[in-house]
């Protein structure tokens, strides 16, 4: 019996080793960071973890920051107004979304006479792009402004990085030369970027009374950009938890069935 126990623990040990090796793989694959990259400020986010969900209020405030600040230069063309009322997002009402969409002008057509025409935006429309194409944006702004739809997944440690970047503008250290038109940022790889500091205290009016500090706005807009990158996160976590419970139970069933099957062999 004792031998048996040792045998079992050895086997589970091997499995654990396999699992550890498997989980260790991403560490190997971890991208080679630029040597001068500064580790972003590590924050806790409500959407992290097994039961992670978005904070609706943060998403709504974040949308306001996005719309009034980011969208002046950046596009987010994978996001559509209707997404704003879908479950797991800011969950605006249908009326609110229709009103938000109607604020923009969309060029549609051709109509029956072959002409393009302008119409108010509808929920099915994409978030408007401030420039007709990336080249136009780069020409007007002096540097390409990346599309923000999936930006939170497109940078290492995405959400922490975005927040850090937004709060990371500072005076360049002594002896660090910053060319005209560029700006110093503690967290940007290489420290100089074309985007000027986008947020200042009190810039965006918050209707829910949350203090509109740079840090708070940076958190909110990052929260919002995580949602635009992963709009199905809440559904994923919910189903994932159910799947895990199921698989653990299934493994239990299979374990006992297997022991029964093998019992006549020992």
């Amino acid at each position, binding site marked *: 019996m004792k*031998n048996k126990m040792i045998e079992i623990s050895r*086997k589970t040990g*091997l*499995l654990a080793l*396999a*699992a550890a*090796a*498997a*989980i260790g*793989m*991403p560490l*190997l*694959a*971890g*991208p*080679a*960071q*630029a*040597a001068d990259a500064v580790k972003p400020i590590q924050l806790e986010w409500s959407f992290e973890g*097994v039961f992670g969900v978005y904070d609706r209020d943060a998403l709504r405030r974040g949308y306001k920051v996005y719309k009034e600040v980011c969208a002046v230069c950046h596009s987010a063309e*994978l996001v559509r107004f209707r*997404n704003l009322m879908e479950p797991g997002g800011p969950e605006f009402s249908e009326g609110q979304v229709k009103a938000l969409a109607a604020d923009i002008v969309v060029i549609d057509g051709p109509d029956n006479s072959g002409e393009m025409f302008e119409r108010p935006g509808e929920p099915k429309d994409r978030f408007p792009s401030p420039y007709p194409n990336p080249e136009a944006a780069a020409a007007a702004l002096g540097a390409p402004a*990346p*599309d923000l*739809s*999936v*930006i939170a*997944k*497109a*940078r*290492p440690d*995405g959400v922490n990085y975005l927040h850090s970047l937004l709060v990371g503008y500072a005076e360049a250290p002594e002896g660090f030369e910053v060319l005209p038109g560029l700006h110093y940022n503690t967290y940007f*790889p290489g420290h100089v970027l074309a985007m000027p500091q986008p947020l200042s205290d009190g810039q965006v009016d918050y209707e829910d009374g949350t203090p509109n500090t740079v840090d708070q706005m940076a958190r909110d807009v990052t929260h919002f950009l995580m949602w635009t*990158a992963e*709009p*199905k996160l809440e*559904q*994923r*976590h919910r*189903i*994932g*938890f159910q*799947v*895990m419970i199921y*698989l*653990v139970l*299934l*493994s239990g069933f*299979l*374990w006992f*069935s*297997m022991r029964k*099957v*093998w019992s006549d*062999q020992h």
Partner: protein
Amino acid sequence: MSHQSTYTPGNGFSRWMDERLPVMRLVNDSFVDYPVPKNLNYWWTFGAVLSFCLAVQIVTGIVLAMHYIPTTELAFASVEHIMRDVNYGWLIRYVHSNGASMFFIAVYIHMFRGLYYGSYKAPREVLWILGVLIYLLMMATAFFGYVLPWGQMSFWGATVITNLFGAIPLVGEALRTWLWGDFAVGDPTLNRFFSLHYLFPFLIAGVVILHVWALHVTGQNNPAGIEVKDPKKDTVAFTPYATMKDAFGLSIFMILFAYFVFFNPNGLGEPDNYIIADPMKTPAHIVPEWYLLPFYAILRAVPDKLGGVVLMFGAIAILFVLPWLDTSKVRSARFRPLYKQFFWIFVVVCIGLGYCGGQSPDKILIPVGEGGFDVTDLSRILTTYYFLHFLVLFPVLGLIEKPKPLPESIAASVLGSEPAKS
């Protein structure tokens, strides 16, 4: 099949069918009454895990192809359309993208198990070679698939890998242009990669059938590395004994799989691949997916372009001749004290190569004066060891090593008459 068929049709219809297309007999003899050594451990469940991975990849892949658009203009957006709009699209896509990693985790465990227990040795050489062929096809399929989302890593990975062929003397340049169908990676490249990405899994499935066939001719190797003597005492029926054990192993594996799909779906990927491909701008550090990193390290370890390519492909090619490099009379590392140690060193070397492949080549590991010992230096040492392991240690160890006494039979090894430590 090496053993006698035990199938007896139960009723009139199955008798009628058996005389015309004995498919039930085939299933029965291969997966029900098929005898397997009774001492197989959990490392042997990875065959079933791999079949599961292949099936999952094919099914989810067919579904994704219903929504994916293989043009440079729309590929990235169509993947995001799947993630955002298609019903359960995010689930299917994350299962597929993480499924590739799971497939490779399983295949590496499966291969290292073969190395540890000497499963490649006579009479299982063809079985092993078919396995290496599957592994090669898997790498090609994974590479084609990684190009499809048309992110930055897709584009630059495709550019770098296709440029490897440019290293071939005389025809390299023409071959590369032929692969592209363009003067750089572009629309024609993406389209043909999509076509091949759809085709290759079915080639894999075909070779898997041969692999399983070859397995059933020789019978399975086992942890003791000795052949079945008395089927009554040494073996059990595949069903239910092996099937239940496989099902349990698979279930545990699926927990790991589900963890990645639901709670860390991008943990194994590169953030850069969420940036749409830009042929004008190379990301600061381009790395392949983790499962190809060791080979990438070998490629970079050589300062010569052609030399690097030759060595990288050589690292895989050497696996084909493995059965003839090993001179040991004993299969299982359980009874090969020296080989066992070198096996684990080899595992560490492979992981080390993977580490090197993921790092910037000029990253200093041990500073010495101005420069120091960098990633490239480490890659060179590990690459050298990789080849020494097969070319020198394999032939030599078998000659100088004094194996431990083998158990009398598989049944005896199960009952514990084998040497206590294994």
